[in-house]
């Protein structure tokens, strides 16, 4: 009898319940093959754009794998492989622009980025010539963001406390809904609002402070949302214990709830600072830009880092582009450091959930 010499796999084949599968290295080989074919097509057809090469390779890979898999493994498995391939391709498609953006910014920005660039303004610099720096813009951004944080953080914090600790009824529901909607306000609309009130109605001039007001509007809802999440994480047992000792509610909030969640709240505030640091549109309307150093955020037009990038780009010459890239590098570095520190704090002082 032949059956006695059969391995389990053979027997499975014999019974028709074992489906043939592509070997583990199958997808890798197909991927390499489609990349090679795509390069060949690109060279033969003389396609210059590398984007096209990548797209052709991706399409070949997805189709090739589907065809081969449906021959070998059957339709259901082929569909599964198709989905897997598409998901991987989508992921790579998303990584490519990010990698390109970071690479371009560093490669082009590093050219003029040095100590001189960080410590000098654009005062008296002819735009088509190299030279000048971002000191005035850096100063303006720091001042504007600091003022915005001083306005937005307390209001945001108190609102979140209201929503979590006191909030009941219609008012709390309305606040929750409009905070959510407020996160979606386009930054330029916030700028137009401050423009219509502060500059056109009350008659103040362009200033860093006007920009700060718009930034504060953009910052408040994000602070509320993140603080709310953090306060909700504070275990109720802590509050109960405090009440049981006869501590009034406001002291419980100040001495028990806030200290427990302070790490997460700090993270949230820092992340929203990082977010408004890159805002350009409202500053274009309210701060106006200024090539000279203006230390006073309450008087006269100021510069700001994102606005500086836009102005240098608008100059439209190589020296200005270099400065724009360098400023972009400074801005990204600033935002990324804020992000990393914020997440570091979150990990270091994560709220004790008691679970």
């Amino acid at each position, binding site marked *: 009898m032949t059956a006695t010499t059969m391995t389990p796999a053979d027997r499975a084949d014999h019974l028709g319940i074992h489906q043939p599968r592509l070997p583990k290295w199958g997808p890798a080989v197909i991927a390499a093959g489609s990349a090679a074919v795509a390069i060949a097509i690109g060279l033969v057809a003389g396609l210059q754009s590398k*984007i096209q090469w990548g797209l052709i390779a991706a399409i070949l890979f997805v189709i090739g794998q589907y065809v081969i898999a449906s021959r070998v493994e059957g339709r259901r498995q082929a569909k599964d492989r198709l989905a897997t391939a598409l998901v991987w391709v989508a992921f790579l498609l998303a990584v490519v622009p990010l990698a390109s953006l970071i690479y371009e910014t560093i490669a082009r920005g590093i050219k003029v980025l040095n100590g001189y660039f960080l410590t000098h303004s654009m005062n008296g610099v002819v735009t088509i010539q190299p030279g000048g720096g971002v000191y005035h813009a850096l100063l303006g951004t720091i001042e504007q963001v600091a003022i915005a944080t001083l306005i937005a953080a307390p209001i945001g914090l108190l609102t979140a406390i209201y929503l979590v600790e006191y909030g009941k009824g219609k008012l709390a529901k309305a606040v929750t809904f409009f905070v959510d909607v407020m996160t979606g306000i*386009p930054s330029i609309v916030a700028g137009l609002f401050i423009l219509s009130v502060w500059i056109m109605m009350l008659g103040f001039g362009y200033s860093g402070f006007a920009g700060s007001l718009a930034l504060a509007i953009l910052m408040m809802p994000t602070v509320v949302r993140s603080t709310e999440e953090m306060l909700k994480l504070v275990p109720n047992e802590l509050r109960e214990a405090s009440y049981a000792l006869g501590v009034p509610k406001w002291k419980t909030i100040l001495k028990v709830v806030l200290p427990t969640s302070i790490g997460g709240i700090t993270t949230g505030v820092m992340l929203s600072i990082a*977010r408004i640091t890159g805002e350009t549109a409202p500053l274009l309307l309210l701060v106006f830009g200024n090539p000279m150093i203006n230390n006073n955020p309450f008087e006269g037009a100021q510069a700001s880092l*994102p606005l500086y990038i836009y102005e240098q780009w608008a100059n439209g010459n190589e020296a200005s582009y270099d400065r724009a890239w360098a400023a*972009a590098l400074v801005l990204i570095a600033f935002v990324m450091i804020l992000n990393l520190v914020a997440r570091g704090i979150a990990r270091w002082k994560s709220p004790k959930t008691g679970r």
Partner: protein
Amino acid sequence: MTTDIRTPAPPPPQAPKAQPGHLTSAKGTGRLGDKIFLGFSRGAGITLLVLMGAIAVFLTIRAVMALSKNEGNFFTTFEWNANSTPPVFGIAVLAFGTIVSSIIAMLIAVPIAVAIALFITHYAPRKLATPIAYVIDLLAAIPSIVYGLWGALFLVPHLTGVYKWLDSWLGWTVVFSYDGGAARSLMTVGILLAIMILPIITNVSREVFAQAPKMHEEAALALGATRWEVIRTAVLPFGRSGVISASMLGLGRALGETMAVATVLSPSAILSAKILEPGGGTFAQNIASAFKEAGEFGRDALIASGLVLFVITLLVNGAARLIIARRKEYSGANG
């Protein structure tokens, strides 16, 4: 053999937890300190509401002032000549450009974002999933002006080849006809916006997919489903409303994006179906570009267009939030 064996099923979606802070009376003990503190925190909440109302009111006042002197029809006029006498301006081109570029962005971003969300929750090796989610978060942190700079100086020159290729295959459709100029068109804007709204759609979808009931997935696996069949039958139906609201949040972003559009698009007062050709404009881009030359009245006109943008984004975001709010088990949409 499917090797996707997961940890034992977690308990079913948490039973409704007691709302923190609500155990005692909401008013506190009625002592002076409590009253003051409640007053402050409630005041902050009311401040936010007042702010939202004030935005609507002040923009409307300015817009009405502008519209009363407008010689053109606000909704059908193509050009934007708010500084000329008599002023003639309209939002036809801006509305068209805003909607078209946002639609392009959504068509590109939503499928990719959903795929990445699935990648993170169901496909990526465990060790890779967290860093990838982190990288997507960083993508969201990059300022829009940097995207704009990259779009104008890197993406635009690199897309001309793709557009020529599109033209040679699909040029007969008119929509994809292209004559080889700089690719500073609505299509490029749409692609750039897609990259920019990818993170928010991915993050929200990812959170929903991660909450899909494990029991359903395991049941599907036990019936011999492939991984794709598990996703199609157990994960996607569960996450559908989450994906819709995530997309609408992304749409809200795309509609209001200013700087990336202002740097990439080469604006003009034409309304054309040729999305690869330069021209057109969006609400936000027009405000940023026209502001420096606008006089007192010109600003009012720009505020009028800003009001339209405000209302549109308000509706889109409000709808997205209502969809999210309807799913009680899902919270933390914007964390």
